[in-house]
């Protein structure tokens, strides 16, 4: 099943890529190929990959039928029930990125870390608090003052 979704996505991607390639304006001067030729080859290559996948799907389903006949359990879906957890972490990370410049590195990072450590390192409040705040403060000063990396100060005065 999962492989079929990949196959569909691959074909859609190839289509979108071909369409986007056609949108590139061309001025063919001195360059016999221009900016579109290589991308077109890639589009064809991706379709080739899709065909290879189709062959594999057919072959695997034949194999699965054989083993089902023998009464073996297929190991088909490796998906488990915790996608929503990953979605939640991704959303929280997106919130962090949105707040990164307006709030500044120290505040956004400390709150991001605090929420995640509280959720995944349970019942150790003091440890989580200290790590989140100290990491944000120390790394901010280490990177901006010592290593010359610019991090956003945000609403804090330093």
């Amino acid at each position, binding site marked *: 099943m999962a492989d079929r979704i990949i196959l569909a996505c691959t074909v859609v991607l190839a289509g979108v890529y071909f369409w986007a390639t056609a949108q590139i304006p061309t001025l063919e001067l001195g360059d016999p190929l221009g900016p579109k030729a290589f991308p077109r080859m890639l589009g064809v*290559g991706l379709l080739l990959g899709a065909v290879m996948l189709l062959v594999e799907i057919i072959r695997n389903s034949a194999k699965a039928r054989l083993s089902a006949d023998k009464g073996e359990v297929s190991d088909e879906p490796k998906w488990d029930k*915790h996608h929503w957890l990953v979605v939640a972490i991704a959303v929280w990370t997106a919130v962090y*990125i949105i707040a990164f410049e307006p709030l500044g590195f120290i505040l956004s990072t400390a709150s991001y870390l605090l929420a995640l450590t509280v959720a995944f390192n349970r019942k150790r409040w003091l440890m989580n608090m200290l790590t989140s705040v100290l990491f*944000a403060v120390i790394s901010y000063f280490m990177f901006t003052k010592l290593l010359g990396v610019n991090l956003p100060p945000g609403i804090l005065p330093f």
Partner: protein
Amino acid sequence: METLTHILNGFVVCMQPMNLWYTFLGVLMGTIIGVLPGIGPSAGIALLIPITYGMNPTSALIMLCGIYYGAKYGGSTTAILIRTPGEAASVMTSIDGYEMARKGRAGAALAVSAIGSFIAGTIGVIGLTLFAVPLASMALKFGPAEYFTLMLFAMTAVSTLTGESPAKGVIATIFGLMIATIGIDLQSGQARYTMGIPEFQDGVGFVVVVVGLFAMAEVFRGLEDIYRGTSAKAMKITGKLWLTKEEWQRSIGPIWRGGIIGFVIGVLPGAGGTIASIMSYTTEKRMSKHPEEFGHGAIEGVAGPESANNSDTAGALVPLLTLGVPGGGATAVMLGAFIMYGVQPGPLLFQNRPDLVWGLINSMYVGNIMLVILNLPLIGLFVRLLYIPVGILYPLIVAISVIGAYAINGSTVDLWLILIFGVIGYVFNKLDIPVAPLVLSLVLGGIMEQSFRQAMTISGGELKIFYNSGITVTLLAMSVISVALPFVMPMLRKLGSKGDES
């Protein structure tokens, strides 16, 4: 003769106090990255590139290379004490290494890993020293057509050898090449696929992609494991951190063989450290007088694979340094690092910057000595890293990734990219789509397109330039074989088994 002078001069370069310090920093970070789950050498190197930007390239590359081979040392510690490889290539070590630890011989397992890694790592660097010059002088004759076909071969080999499914490898490779086409086309000045985002005109940087795929995705996976309660606890080091005479006698053969297997596999594109250690494991099991001990704490099952995956790193640097074409994901990240520092690896580098090349290669002899000290007498310090609660470690990895990504351009676009590629990496992992081919083709994509177009300009638009020379024909044939083989093999096997039945 001239080469010998260059090599000796390289020792002068790598023994400079400054470079010794960066070697030490590199292998120290490598060991830490190897021990810690959740962040591997590829992400570690990528994260350091923006921070070390502007450093002397020789020192910076010595340090990044130290991370690359140092991580293999650290990876075995985690494999032995937790049974999860701290680094992908230690996966075989986690079988017998963990069984040894359970039987109270963790000390011996750690000792044989460190000693085997040292011996095999040094064998690898000697091999690199010997093979570098002849290969580089051969590559001097390469034109754009040869380079194009060489990169094609590297990509096809990686895409069909890294994962279970060659088709998914090919799809990942092309996806990486497509990402590489985003940005301004260097020859026509035309913007391609920028979707109206000004930051995309310079292309999607490989640093953000690597950090996303290797660090962020690993965080998602790790946090999910915590929630499911499947993350394991570290064992204590038991037994003396040294080998008995009998253990030593059993290990020395696997170490040598592993060292040689690893180097050869490393030089070839596609296979990489994981396959090298699997091959060493099966070789030792077949040669052993007591194969039934394998899987139940056979010291050969630790000594061989651990040696193989360490000499593999030196082997993998051969094509990177001499041809400028990496044969796997981690060396692709190294190539990206070279380019970021304005250094183009390849045959010309041996002529123009012998000090850099040999300083870098020779620093690996020194680095291996440092690593055996860090990983044997000082191992206790690094084992403590395993007691850091993962619920704190993974969130910190996100924060470090964010700092590294923001340091590139000071733009939140790069932060969005690491998040997006983190999700892509997580999904790819669930779907068994390998990410190493994606990284390789992303880094090589730009160069590949340029050499293709240069070749076509030379030939006046005729494709025959790609099958005019013996080198291009050989490389093309090898590319076709590496794609076709996984499809033809089952058919051949079927024919073969039918022959047996009759």
